[in-house]
């Protein structure tokens, strides 16, 4: 669908487009959810250690650490 002008389409054109789209989507080759869930879990667990928002970061290694403040000796 390169360039089309939506304003040129009638309601019937749009309905036909929707029906054709559904016909395409039915044919999709699907995977079992069990396989997909395992992949997602594996991906997350492989990356968790390096995920700063999840693991946290030491103050002195944090590029966003708050500057300044007083040091009491």
């Amino acid at each position: 669908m390169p360039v089309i002008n939506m304003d040129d389409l009638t309601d019937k054109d749009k309905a036909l487009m929707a029906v054709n789209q559904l016909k395409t989507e039915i044919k999709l080759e699907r995977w079992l959810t069990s396989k997909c869930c395992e992949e997602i879990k594996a991906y997350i667990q492989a990356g968790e250690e390096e995920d700063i928002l999840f693991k946290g970061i030491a103050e002195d290694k944090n590029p966003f650490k708050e500057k300044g403040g007083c040091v009491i000796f």
Partner: protein
Amino acid sequence: MGEMEELRKEMENLKDQITAARKTFQDSTLQEAAAGVTVVGRVQLKTRKTLRGHLAKIYAMHWGTDSTLCVSASQDGKLIVWDTITTNKVNAIPLKSSWVMTCAYAPSGNLVACGGLDNMCSIYNLKGKDGNVKVMRELAAHTGYLSCCRFLSDTEIITSSGDCTCVLWDIETGTQKTVFAGHQGDAMSLGVSPDFKFFISGACDFTAKLWDIREAECRQTFGGHESDINAIGFFPNGNAVITGSDDATCKLYDLRADQELLTYQDSSIMCGVTSLAPSKSGRLLLAGHDDFNVNIWDMLKAERVGVLAGHDNRVSCIGVSTDGMACCTGSWDSFLKIWN
């Protein structure tokens, strides 16, 4: 039976067939797969920086790929490029139209884009010869507001619009390369896949669609939300999609199973989701809501494990930097905050 009535019946029939086909591949849930995983302990992120400078509501923000610079757009009529570490404003770009709703940073760092009620996507060159930031191109053809835009490169950008379409533009010629039509409501948000081959769009027809950029077709459509989808993003590995809706929930859809895996909801959360971003590993999902908060979810266990409370008005945008080091929130209170 009239033609339209016949077409409607055929549509319902086809949708039922798709629902049935999806069910036959539903042999387990993400909850079951994650049964042995311990839920994340309470996540408490701190505000490390507050970016002050906008004079009105912030509607959008986007990190640059260097994880240091970011761009924000406000209805004070300005785009500001910030150095998030020093909090300095690298550029403050005055806009022709102050009704801006979205902004984007090109992966190269050379360009930024924005748009809104002017129905246009304006491209700005940050690295012009004389040092001044100027409009490089105005991409005009949408007949509705620009809700979102994302660069594929310095020469191509994808936009989503209130006219229900998404468009792939050639920036150099300023022309449309492809119009992605199919949504039956305003397209509100879009996200590009990590390999740049696909993009996803969320719309006011309550569905999310996956589009093949080069084949110029819609591959899959995901339903289930009970209201407008305002926010959408790819799960970090590119094989799943996360949506956020006015129905106050977020959903995770897997592209290969072609169906929803999980809904992130809590009876105490009644405000619509405005924005979302997964953490780098995908373990956490940060979702901004109308009630001024950002909820943090454990994506595997679907439990809320934290809240970012710090803004005095709606959180309109959120983004996690490319290296996963920090999250940035933008709000109607005119401030951006950096958290980790």
